[in-house]
């Protein structure tokens, strides 16, 4: 779990006096020490663990620092550029920047990059790159222009890949963005045009990038409020050629694009992204850490005094300007397990149904595009295009559908949805389905009369929906008493909260039989007591007697007899289901659902007494049925298991014991249940005794087969 720890402020000089906040925060050659360059005239060296500045340098009045100071890791000296062209190199002992080494360059510098393992690299505004050593040898050397005159570098970053530096910079020209990847060791440079969405003229506001061995992942925040990822190869297949890099949506709508101070991104690790900006709902600036794999918010923090919209991340610290001072937020990310949070899982999975479909497969949904590129890295860019082409229509189709949902008729939506679902599943199918469901729900909430049952059923049947993807769906279905949809949800959702499960249960118990009759509920999990009653009444009776139960139970209500359409003798009362098959099917789906006891108990208390009694009676009936055969299972496809029945009985009694004891009709039921359980216990204790005897017998048998100390045997060798 990622967590932002308590922040602290680095005291000292007030910063951010210039118009652009800070120029930069850079690592120095000592761990824990950072060079902070103000956009005015000051450079401060901070020791973070001590929370104090170690040194501060300023340029003369009238000069402006134009490029953040960096540390040359090979020599330990600091380098900065002021007034675009003047290079200054100094070290800790120097007091004034006026008297230190100075070199005036021929061209304007954009940034100096310095990373461990290589000399600092100077990126000129026209896109040329030079090593500092070579530059200092001949400061006035000619610097070529790599990018055209109208292009301007927006952002840049350096990476070390296999010990070789790779420089990435983004340029903008009339709203078109290009990425240049420059491999220093080979001098190869390649240009990628960043493809933006078709319809909008969005502006890229901020950038972040990370690298693994083969590709650079460029994260961009676009003015449409979404964050996109673009993958660029570190070693292009054909350098020199212009290529188009397609972006994919990472996360959307988490910060407002209209933030005053802009939005800053920082990649914390493979899955975590820090975003600084104003939330959509407005308000103060807020730093949030997102898990981009699961699209969940991990941590967030508000900054009431405003920020400069800049964010730096080194090691385990996030740096930002909060008010007038530099604030450091230690950041920790620990591994967490999803399974730990899930509680009790479903007990039995029918062998025919593939179990995987219950869970959203994040690996495939997220990495699908990447995975497909892996086998043939050289053709990567091309592949991206293909993927983009195939996924683009899906995205737009879902968008189209969302538009339809907003104002179309129920029929129309259903037709469109069917079309959408019939199309080939795209990598972001999960999210698209989630969006559609959310869209439908939104409209349902807005228009009480609107209830597209068919659409919702179709969506649930895709097996990709889960409760957390559309939190309001089941509540809505409960509200509309749509038992059919609820049954589907209970069957397909792995993550239903106990509160909702209980609401379903209550609905299933309370809904009128006449209404149930109309619905089309799948009753495959129901044991057809009608058949059993016909075939084996004698046997059943005998077994019950054997188990020590007086079969003359008169506890069963006879409300269902009419529905059963068969007269039943008093001896068989216990064997006739107290609920209709359809209701039984619904209750079975509740029995099958996953839950954790502690969360379920308080909600079970809310069920009225007569419903509790009915459910208990049904459970008792199932229990009796289970006990009829040696395997302790119910017949039929996918029936509730004995454990589920027992667990629910115990839970129900635990939650409602005082109530149930007071209800007269339940008392009888409790008594017979108690008698039956007691009889079962005595049977099982006898069985335990027999088991011991059998074990002894088996042991004796084994000893017999074990040979004595001496024997003469016949052996045939062949």
């Amino acid at each position: 779990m990622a967590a932002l720890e308590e922040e602290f402020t680095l005291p000292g000089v007030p910063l951010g006096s210039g118009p652009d906040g800070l120029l930069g925060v850079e690592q120095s050659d000592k761990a824990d020490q950072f060079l902070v360059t103000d956009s005015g005239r000051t450079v401060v060296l901070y020791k973070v663990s001590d929370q104090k500045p170690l040194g501060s340098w300023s340029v003369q009045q009238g000069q402006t620092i134009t490029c953040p100071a960096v540390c040359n890791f090979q020599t330990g000296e600091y380098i900065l550029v002021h007034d675009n062209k003047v290079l200054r190199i100094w070290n800790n002992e120097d007091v004034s920047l006026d008297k230190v080494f100075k070199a005036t360059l021929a061209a304007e510098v954009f940034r100096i990059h310095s990373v461990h393992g290589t000399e600092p690299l100077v990126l000129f505004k026209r896109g040329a790159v030079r090593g500092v050593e070579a530059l200092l040898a001949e400061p006035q050397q000619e610097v070529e222009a790599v990018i055209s005159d109208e292009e301007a570098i927006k952002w840049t970053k350096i990476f070390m890949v296999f010990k070789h530096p790779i420089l990435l910079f983004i340029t903008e020209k009339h709203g078109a963005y290009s990425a240049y990847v420059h491999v220093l060791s080979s001098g190869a440079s390649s240009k990628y045009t960043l493809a933006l969405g078709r319809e909008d003229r969005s502006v890229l506001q901020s950038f972040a990038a990370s690298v693994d061995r083969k590709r650079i992942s460029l994260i961009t925040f676009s003015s449409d409020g979404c964050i996109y990822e673009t993958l660029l190869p570190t070693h292009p297949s054909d350098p020199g050629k212009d290529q188009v890099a397609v972006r994919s949506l990472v996360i959307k709508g988490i910060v407002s694009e209209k933030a005053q101070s802009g939005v800053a991104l920082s990649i914390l690790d493979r899955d975590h992204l820090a975003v600084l900006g104003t939330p959509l709902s407005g308000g103060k600036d807020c730093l949030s850490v997102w898990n981009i794999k699961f699209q969940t918010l991990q941590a967030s923090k508000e900054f009431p005094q405003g920020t400069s919209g800049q964010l730096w991340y080194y090691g385990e610290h996030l740096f930002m300007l909060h008010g007038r001072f530099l604030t450091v937020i230690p950041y920790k990310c620990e591994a967490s397990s999803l399974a730990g949070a899930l509680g009790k899982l479903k007990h039995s999975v029918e062998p025919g149904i593939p179990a995987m479909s219950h869970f959203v497969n994040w690996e495939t949904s997220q990495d699908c595009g990447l995975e497909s590129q892996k086998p043939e890295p050289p053709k990567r860019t091309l592949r991206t295009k293909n993927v983009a082409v195939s996924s683009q229509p899906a995205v737009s189709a879902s968008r189209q559908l969302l538009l339809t949902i907003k104002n179309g008729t129920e029929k129309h939506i259903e037709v469109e949805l069917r079309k959408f679902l019939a199309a080939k599943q795209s990598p972001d199918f999960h999210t698209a389905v989630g969006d559609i469901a959310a869209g439908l729900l939104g409209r349902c909430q807005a228009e009480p009369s609107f209830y597209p049952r068919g659409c919702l059923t179709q969506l649930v049947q895709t097996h990709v929906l889960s409760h957390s993807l559309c939190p309001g769906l089941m509540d809505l279905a409960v509200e509309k008493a749509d038992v059919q949809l609820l049954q589907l949800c209970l069957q397909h959702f792995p993550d239903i909260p106990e509160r909702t499960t209980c609401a379903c249960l209550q609905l299933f118990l309370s809904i009128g039989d006449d209404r149930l009759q109309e619905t089309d509920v799948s009753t495959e999990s129901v044991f057809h007591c009608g058949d059993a009653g016909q075939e084996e009444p004698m046997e059943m009776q005998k077994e019950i007697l054997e188990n020590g139960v007086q079969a003359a139970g008169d506890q069963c209500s006879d409300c269902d007899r009419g529905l059963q359409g068969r007269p039943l003798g008093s001896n068989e009362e216990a064997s006739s289901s107290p609920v209709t098959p359809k209701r039984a099917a619904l209750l079975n789906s509740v029995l099958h659902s996953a839950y954790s006891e502690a969360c379920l108990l308080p909600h079970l208390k809310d069920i009225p007494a007569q419903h509790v009694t009915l459910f208990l009676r049904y459970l008792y009936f199932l229990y009796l049925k289970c006990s009829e055969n040696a395997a302790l299972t119910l017949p039929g496809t996918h029936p509730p298991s004995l454990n589920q029945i027992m667990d629910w009985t115990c839970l129900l009694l635990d939650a409602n014991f005082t109530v149930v004891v007071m209800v007269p009709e339940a008392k009888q039921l409790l008594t017979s249940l108690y008698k039956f359980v007691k009889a079962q216990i005595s049977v099982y204790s006898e069985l335990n005794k027999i088991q011991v005897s059998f074990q002894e017998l088996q042991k004796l048998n084994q000893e017999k087969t074990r040979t004595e100390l001496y024997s003469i045997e016949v052996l045939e060798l062949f």
Partner: protein
Amino acid sequence: MGEFRVHRVRFFNYVPSGIRCVAYNNHSNRLAVSRTDGTVEIYNLSANYFQEKFFPGHESRSTEALCWAKGQRLFSGGLNGEIVEYDLQALTIKYSVDAFGGPIWSLAASPSGSQLLIGCEDGSVKLFQITSDKIQFERNFDRQKSRILSLSWHPSGTHIAAGSIDYISVFDVKSGSATHKMIVDRRYMGVSKRKCVIWGVAFLSDGTVISVDSAGKVQFWDSATGTLVKSHLLANADVQSIAVSDQEDSFVVGTAEGTVFHFQLVSVASNSTEKQWVRTKPFQHHTHDVRAVAHSPTALISGGTDTHLVIRPLMEKVEVKNYDAALRKITFPHRRLVSCSKKKQLLLFQFAHHLELWRLGATAATGKNGDVLPLSKNADHLLELKTKGPENIICSSVSPCGNWMAYSTASRFFLYRLSYEHDSISLQRVPKTPAFLRSALQILFSEDSTWLFVASSQGPLHIMQLSAGCFQHLHTFQPPSGTVEAMCLLAVSPDGHWLASSGTSAGVHVYSLKQLKPHCTVPAYNFPVTALAIAPSTNNLVIAHSDQQVFEYSIPEKQYTEWSRTVQKQGFHYLWLQRDTPITHISFHAKRPMHILLHDTYMFCIIDKALPLPNDKSLLYNPPSLTSESGVVRRRTPHAFKISKKYKPLLFVELLDERTLVAVERPLDAIIAQLPPPIKKKKFGT
């Protein structure tokens, strides 16, 4: 091959002694193992882990410490206070020196190998100089309060660490004074325990001292400052042993719970130079205390009270995935403890301090494969003969006719004459054994029981003639001049013309008994011989080597036989070569010279030389299920190797007559039942 009647014998109540120390020698890739009864065994790790030498134990000489010095010299120290050096050529004890410090608990040879350090009961640490033929006391270090249980040299040889009770001392070798005393926390899980015994220390070249103690801790100390750097709580019981690899990048510790833990020096983060010791792998191959561990470059070796020697290869160090990469568990000695009189159907069992003579039972019934026949007469325990004195028995033998029995300890040789009257047996020692017959490494009677062959340590082979009640010395074959090599294996031809002997390293010598002179030497082979036998009528010598090769050498023609050449040309079946226990006995039946019976611990095999050899595609081990199938299947896969794995672990198999076998089994359960109870560990759910 046909049906055999098998006497399945399980009454040989043999229990190996627990392992006390192990010492690994990097130069020769050999492992010395000492057992609680004082026996010292040498395993050749290059020769398929064959136990090539052993020194018999002695009741008063319990070994507490074992170490190699000056390359190939082996020293031990024990509770009798003596330092013992072993003669690895003659297989005798070279000398013993009293250290005058009470029982010796620890030994350590200096990195150069020229000095020997011992830790004594009285708290003294004594330094001995190793001279070319002896050791010489040099000086004492500062005396400590209590016994010195463990010692370790710094690889530079300037300092030593000594583990005592409750503390570890660091000595400067030059001055002999203690520079640091590091007190170990006595508390164990917050409870104050009485004493904390430092069972082992290891001094690393960077100055770190690793200690293992009775509180279950592995601790890292800085010897320069005398401070505790790091502590690992490993077990609820004692950690009893430690061994560090030569590269000092990994070490192994053994606990009283039977677990062996591997520690490795690993980088804190990838591509970072900072490294730390991390407990990487636990191994649970033992049920009882792991008293000793060793670290070879490719394997972790451990042994303890449960008598197994376990060699666990480190998979990351094994370059080729051959059979050496498999776990080895050595439980039984690689020599014969049982001899048999075919005529009288007697079995002689050799224990450490006594012999047992049994007569096999009989049956009148017949049956088919797998039947257990009803006994008409049960096996009789005829005799139990206890040795005099504290020495263990080295070897023993009963003559084929059953009238003679001989055994030897390290200093005495005994020959007995047995006489039978109905069911009773009487035993009479043959007096006046000549002085040169002091100790024997191997005793063998000729087929007609008129000759006795004794291989004595130092190398000479004595030949005696036996006649009613007395015996006389006939001849002695002296080893080739200038060599001292003990002969461990003997074989005589059934017609009494030839005698073959094999030593620990050099080849097999064949002597003519008619002319009483050496006949020839079998071409040398790289791997030690594990068993020898001469076939009847053809006088072919069959030799099994520790790499599982079997050769047949014709003595009269002085060359390998045609069959042996064919076998070598085609090669043995890969499964045959992958067996991990050596063949310890080869035997023939007089009427069937074409059939060779041989066995190791897990199978016995009759090789029918008339049948074709199996190739790698054919089934070497015929599955037992074939018996139930039709003969068609059986005929399709006939090959020379008729193997049965029905009886195991096997200590002895012999052909009593054409259709009768005796197989002596020693089930592991029976051994475990006789061991002391292990430390009880709470298991989940009990």
